[in-house]
């Protein structure tokens, strides 16, 4: 793609004691595209996400934001740049209602007092534009279904108007219909011009919404695929390492030429 990627990772490495969790990892995310990050357990997906989100800063490598090199050392840095992360455990407060959860840590105030009316209104607008259906914005999150909780968590990440959203296994614990709801929401994020990094184990989900697919294997890149020009089989063999030589070399060569 011609325009500058909103987020670029180059040669990211991270070592935990004796384990080289990431070595020379590259990734590009453009505005308005969904990049799926796939790989087997322990391939380094979580480590890569934590490096972007500022939870575990990388040992080596360059992170560029809209073409400028930046350093992300704390979760706060990532948030300030405009990177929002929705973790698998969602981190919602069950005892608080939907509005309180959406604005947690970013409450709107009026004369120093919580402005419930404005938060209520903005919550409804946000949920409407994302076509999220929940019973009421004033019930505790505990009473929502798994899919609804996931959509609330994603909606919460949008309150800060980010440019890149990272979704960690958003459909892992969901049923068929709820998964469809979340995937619809992922498409709406793309329509809003956000760059989305989707981490998933589920090839059907990945093929349904992703524009590009980055495969990881043993802490390294193992190929980038364009959704339109690939098949599930090809990706699965990249994940398992069955095509170690062919795909990786070809992709690596192509990317060298692009630079």
């Amino acid at each position: 793609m011609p325009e500058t990627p909103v987020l670029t990772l180059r040669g990211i490495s991270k070592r935990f004691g004796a384990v080289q969790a990431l070595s020379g990892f590259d990734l590009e995310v453009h505005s308005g595209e969904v990049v799926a990050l796939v790989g087997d357990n322990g391939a380094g997906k979580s480590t890569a996400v934590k490096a972007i989100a500022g939870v575990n800063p990388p040992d080596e490598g360059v992170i560029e934001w809209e073409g400028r090199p930046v350093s992300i050392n704390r979760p706060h840095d990532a948030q300030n740049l405009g990177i929002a992360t929705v973790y698998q455990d969602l981190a919602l407060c069950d005892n608080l209602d939907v509005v309180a959860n959406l604005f947690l840590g970013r409450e709107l105030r009026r004369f120093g007092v919580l402005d419930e009316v404005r938060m209520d209104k903005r919550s409804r607008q946000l949920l409407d534009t994302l076509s999220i259906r929940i019973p009421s914005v004033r019930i505790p999150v505990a009473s929502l279904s798994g899919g609804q909780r996931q959509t609330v968590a994603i909606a919460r990440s949008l309150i800060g108007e980010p440019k890149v959203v990272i979704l960690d296994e958003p459909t892992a614990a969901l049923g068929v219909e709820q998964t469809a709801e979340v995937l619809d929401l992922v498409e709406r994020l793309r329509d809003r011009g956000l760059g989305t990094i989707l981490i998933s184990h589920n090839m059907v989900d990945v093929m349904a919404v992703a524009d590009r697919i980055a495969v990881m294997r043993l802490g390294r890149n193992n190929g980038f695929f364009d959704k339109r020009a690939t098949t599930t089989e090809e990706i699965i063999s990249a994940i398992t390492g069955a095509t170690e030589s062919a795909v990786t070399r070809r992709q690596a060569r192509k990317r060298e030429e692009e630079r």
Partner: protein
Amino acid sequence: MSRDRGPDASAQEPAPDAVPAVDTRLLVREEGLKGYLTEFRRKMRSGELGSLPVVIAVIIIWTVFGSLDSTFLSAQNLSDLSQQIVGTGMIAVGIVFVLLLGEIDLSVGSVSGLCAALFAVLNVLNGMNEWLALLVALAGGAAVGLIHGFFFAKVGVPAFVVTLAGNLAWNGLMLQVLGTSGTVNIPGESIVSKLYSTIFHSPAAAYVTAAVGVGLFLAASLLDARRRRAARVPFRPVAEIVLRTVVIAAIAFAAAYILNQYRGLPLALLIFLILLVVLDFVLRRTTYGRQIFAVGGNIEGARRAGISVPFIRMTVFMVAGTMAAAGGIFLAGQIQSASQTSGGGNLLMNVIAAAVIGGTSLFGGRGSVWSALLGALVIGSIQSGMNIMGVSNAVQFMITGSVLLAAVVVDSLSRRTQKAAGRA
């Protein structure tokens, strides 16, 4: 861009019917009082009991003791009761804050005794200015809370162990402060005695207080409804606001009437009520209060939202310490002395019982400062009733213990029902 999505390609565009379509399962409040009643029934079924059990408990206790001995419901006894519950209630407010985090503070009894002793020794024995001594005592409570909070939040020692150690240590410090004197009598003209015993004899005082309270509630409710209506978000219908106001007015003016039948409005009760209104506002309407609930609900969620969990924990323990000091001062004013037994006995059990009986959950994240008032009223009523009937301490302890257990059972059962109804 290709939008081929394979098997679930049916929902290609953001489904246009998704927004307006009304899902029949959604909870839509019906208009007017009927909607209010259905909502109330739904809440009861799903285990959101709120303060209903404790209100029923007060009614039962008052009916039982009132029928056994008519002096229990006399204006004099109820007026005295309203004064006696203030000390316990103040300490229980601090416990409510700690319980909202899902933690416990076992030191508040000792801390209340320590701070009362601090005041007595500084003011009565060493002649320090009484306001300054009062301030030092309150600051002492806050400092103790800060120490607890530090070991809990920064070092990572479980709160119940920190405060259990504190319970013993602060009791020791109190004995040290009192020294050889053992008991320090607080003169009747001291500010601490006056805080407890001052009574506004004019009937107008109680009625004006009731009227101001009800008026503020009505005005705040109406203003909120108007802003909500203007912003086109759901608002309370006027009928519901009027109904709530009428209930509150009935309780407030009945209380004022009973107080005026005897001597009038006690200053201690007025201070307690103002404190409850202020702290309720802090918990429900400020960012700080919202953060306390968030930490009580999901620590990791709160941390990811950028809330400083250690800060919240330390300040909440400071609130508990300060409220323990304030309660201790009122208890000292009640008996007009600070002695080696101050803050001992079953005070700790009573304040924890008061907070839990009032409806604040032991599991964190659910509760209100008003439960301190309601719970202290239950505990105080039982004690007062049994004192009138001449029941021995032994039996009193057993009954109070049973009531605490009953309250925790109600809390646990309602939590289970809430889980079953998908609300916890």
